[in-house]
Each structure stands twice: as C-alpha cells, then as structure tokens.
C-alpha cells in the first residue's frame, strides 16, 4: 500500500527536474530521522521510571540521598529485597491479591460472557432498552453507590472479608459485557443458523459455536480483570481492615507510610508489586492491544 503512494509521488518527482528530486529525498531523510529521534527520546522518557525504580531498589541507603546520583550501584544490594520482605507479611498480601484476582476473573468471565451472548444474539422484549441501561451504568461514577453498598455490606457482616470485593463480580460488569458483546457481534450469524438447522438449542449454540470463537475476547476480559484487580486500591482500602486480609496495594501504601524514607526497600517492594503485571503484559501483549482496540473503536 505504501508503494502506491510512493510510486505515484516518485513518478511525479522524476518528471520534475533532477535537483528537485534530490531535495525531495533529502527532506524525506530528514523527516525520517526526526521521527526516529522523537520516538527514541520518548521511549527513553517512558522507560526511565522503571529503570530508576530498579536501580534505587539495588542501592545502599547511603547511595540514595546524594546528587549527582549513583547510576550504577556497586555492589548491587540485592539484600534490600529479603530485608524489605521480612518487615511486613508480604506473602500473605500476595496470596490475598492473587485470590481476589482469581475469584474476580471466574465471576466476571462467567456472568459477562453469558450476558453478552444474550445481548448480542438472542431476541427478547426490552433487550435494547436494557442494553441502554447497561451503557448508562458505565457512565455512573462508583462513588454514587459506594456508601449505600458499604452500609449494606456492613450489615451483612461482610466488612473485612473478601466478599464485598468478589461477590459483585458474579453479577456482571457493564464494561466487559459491552466489550464481549462487541466481539460477539462480529461472529457471523450464519454459524448460529447452521447450528440451528442442525437442531442445536441456544445453550448448544453458545457452548459449541460462540464460546470457542470467543476465546480471544474472554482472554482479554481475564487479563483486564486481573490488572484491574491488581491495581484496585479504593475497594480494599474501604473494606479490608485486618492485616491478614491486606492486598499488595494496601500493604505497599502502609509500607510507604511507615518506612517511606528507606527508598531502596520501598522501591524493592514496588518492583515486587509490579512484577506479576509486567510479566503478564509481556506474555499477553497482543491480546491486551486487541482488547483495547475492540473497546475503543466502536461507538
């Protein structure tokens, strides 16, 4: 496709005199160079915070509060990691965070996949109206429902358990239903019709036609639920009061408030907190990009 534009321009340029052509090539080279320069500069800026974090986590405390900074700490103070790990029950925090994410993934995938199937594929009275309701709840800031829910969950005795953070995920999430519905709409109806002619009911169609094709989209929902849960701060902050239930985010904030001055240890635990997300990102980048694109492109 590039060639068409370049060929036409090229032909036009060749028709003009040689000098103009040289000028054109020079200008093109300069603009290419500028593009790479900007990209490299931007990349350096966007990568730097990670490098600074890792580098600080490997310094001795005496190398932190000095200027100019020690760029390459020697020897690398790996000891910061075990030392920081000992101060708080990080293993418990980790386990809680993983548990929370796992339950939320199961709940979200289950409730959202079937609802999206209903909205995308089945006809029932009031469907379009209900879908409109779903879209408008996406606009609703969570703060409006936060206080009543807190009062009710307290009455149910759910505070300081994972229940207020997990059970709602089994009752659907507007955003993910929307995302999955958008995806289901792209699956050709002929497949459903063929299955119907073969005598499949709606459950069979869902299980054997739609679900296998929806694996990529369900993957996207899984990944987004994971990162959303891992990053979630306000939910655990409101509902979890006992240390035994803390998540990584809450633990890190606590750590920040108590030993904030020991930058190497704080950064070490920051790295530990980010690591699962970064690893997941590298393994699933393609899916994540696909998911972002899917939600962003359609009106």
């Amino acid at each position, binding site marked *: 496709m590039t060639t068409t534009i370049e060929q036409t321009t090229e032909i036009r340029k060749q028709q003009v005199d040689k000098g103009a052509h040289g000028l054109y090539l020079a200008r093109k080279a300069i603009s290419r160079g500028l593009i790479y320069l900007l990209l490299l500069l931007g990349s350096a800026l*966007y990568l730097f915070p990670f490098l600074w974090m890792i580098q600080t986590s490997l310094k001795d405390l005496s190398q932190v509060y000095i200027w100019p900074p020690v760029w390459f700490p020697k020897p690398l103070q790996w000891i910061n990691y075990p030392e920081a790990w000992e101060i708080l029950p990080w293993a418990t925090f980790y386990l809680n965070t993983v548990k929370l994410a796992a339950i939320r993934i199961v709940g979200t995938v289950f409730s959202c996949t079937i*609802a999206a199937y*209903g909205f995308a594929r089945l006809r*029932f*009275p009031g469907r379009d109206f209900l879908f409109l309701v779903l879209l408008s709840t996406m606009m609703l800031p969570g703060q409006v429902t936060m206080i009543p829910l807190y009062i009710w969950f307290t009455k149910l005795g759910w505070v300081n358990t994972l229940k207020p953070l997990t059970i709602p995920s089994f*009752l659907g999430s507007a955003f993910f239903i929307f995302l999955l519905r958008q995806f289901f709409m792209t699956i050709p109806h002929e497949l459903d019709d063929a299955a119907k002619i073969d005598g499949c009911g709606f459950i069979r169609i869902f299980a054997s036609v739609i679900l296998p094709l929806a694996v990529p989209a369900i993957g996207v929902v899984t990944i987004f639920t994971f990162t959303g849960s891992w990053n979630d701060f306000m939910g655990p902050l409101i509902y979890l009061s006992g240390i035994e239930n803390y998540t990584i985010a809450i633990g890190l904030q606590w750590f920040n408030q108590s030993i904030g001055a020991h930058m190497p240890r704080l950064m070490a635990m920051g790295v530990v907190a980010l690591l699962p*997300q970064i690893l997941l990102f590298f393994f699933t980048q393609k899916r994540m990009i696909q998911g972002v694109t899917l939600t962003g492109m359609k009106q």
Partner: protein
Amino acid sequence: MAAKSQLAPSRSRRYLSQKTGEAIWGYVTIAPWLIGVLLLTIFPMAYSIYLSFFDADFLGTMEFIGLDNYKRLLFEDTTWPIALRNTAFYAFVSVPIGLVLSLLVAVLLNQKVRGLALFRTIFYLPSVVQGVAVAVLWRWLFHPWYGPINGLIQFLGLGAGPDWFGSQDWAMPAIIIMSQWGIGGSMIIFLAGLQDVPQSLYDASSIDGAGTMGRFWHITIPMMTPTLFFSLIMGIIGSWQMFTQSYVMTGGGPNNATLTAVLLLYQRAFQGFHFGLASAMAWILFIIILIFTLLILKSSAAWVYYEGDIRK
C-alpha cells in the same frame, strides 16, 4: 429478521414457541447482570439519594434535614469548592494533553517505522501498571533534591526545579505530568484508528497535490474524530474520579492543593462517617460528570465525522 418473519406464517406455531424459548433464554443469560444492576446500582442509587437528605452517620443515627447537605456543599462549605476546582483543573488539563500526546505518538508509530512492536510496547507498558506502586515511584522521581526530574531541569540549565509536592502551585502539575505516563491505552486505540484510515484517501489527496500537513489536517484528523471523541469522554469521566494518586502521594496537600472531589468524599464518608453529606457529594459529582459528558456529546455533531452509517 425480515426473512424470519416471512417464514413465520407457514410454520407459525413452531416459530412462536421458538421465539418464546429464545426470549426466555435471553432473560436467563442476562439474569446475573440484571440482578446485579438492581442490587448493586439502582437500589443503592435510590438509597444514596435518600441518604443525602439526612444527617446520617456510622452509628445509624439519622435525622432528616431536607436539602441542608446540598445547601451546605453549594454555599457554605469552603473545602468542597476547592476539591471541585482541583478536580476540574486536573481533568481539563491532563485529558487534552494526554490526547494530543497519545495521538502524536500514534502518528509517529504509524509512519512504517522499524521496531514498531518494541516502541509500542515501551509506550503501552506504563499504562498497564497504575496504582500505589506507580504513585510511590513518581513521588520519588519528583523528589526536589535527589529526584531525576529536577536533576534534568538543572541539567538543561533551567535553574533549580520546584519543590513539587511541597509546593501548592506545583503539586497538581506534578500529578498531571505523572498521568501522562499512562497514555498507552489511548495511544493503542489511536494507532488502530490510524491503521483503519483507507489508504485510497491518502493516495487521492497525494495526486491532488496535498502535502504532509494537509493530509494530516484534512484526512487523518477528521477520520480520527470518532476515536478522539470516545477517548475524550472516557478520559473526562475517569479523571473526575481521580483518587489514588492524591491519596498516596500527598494525602490532598499541601494546603489542599491536590485534594480531589473523590478524596474529600472518601474522607467525609470513611474517616468522618458523614454518610449523608458524602452521598450529597457523590450526587453533585455525578451531575457534574453528566453535564460535561452531555456537553461533549452535544458538541460532537459539530466536530465528529462519521463515515457512512453507524454500524449496528
């Protein structure tokens, strides 16, 4: 659908029962969501309005005070307007800058560059890792004496950098700068949008003698407006709810300079246990977000270009 109804008369009984069956399954599939929307959204919304007319606290004492909470917030409270002003500043500065930056990166990446996947990864990664760890990290990056940001400012010969989070004027700009680290999501959306712009449009304009800038303003930008519109709405809604950064980095300080609407709401609700007042705050916030969303929506007719019909 039309084809179906034409078939209907010949085998109407089977068709009808199939239709009923389909409807029943329809309701079954959306049942969890429907229950959720009632229990977790609609009832709480109703109860939240109700609460906002009361002086309600954690111990369960409730006294009906009519519109007093709203009156207090709109006319008497001195902190709430500050929180709203800060949040508005954050939203209306960080979102447009973010959109321009992510569009710029997307346009650069769309120039058939080598190493596209690597560049894309680098710009996208930070947006995945939001939260406490990132807030803690940026507080350290902004350290007035030993942080690399002020180091860079000094290195560029711009004098000593500001005392970011210690300064009333610079704390919010610091959070806005930090928020630009997370533009990866919209950058990806824009990149996909750019790749969807038909090459034929560029070819045609090129034959008509349009230059690079002309093509950018008259083809790329108009074709990208639906995507920009979507990102703008989501960005405004999200940024009006900013909380974690202020809570972790500054606690709302110094001197309330980074106090956001949701942070104040959180403090009133879960530290002061003024549930009635905090509910009124939530509704005011909701109405503000709604007004801005509707304004953007209304304005879209003037600047958003839809190619052909809207897809169903």
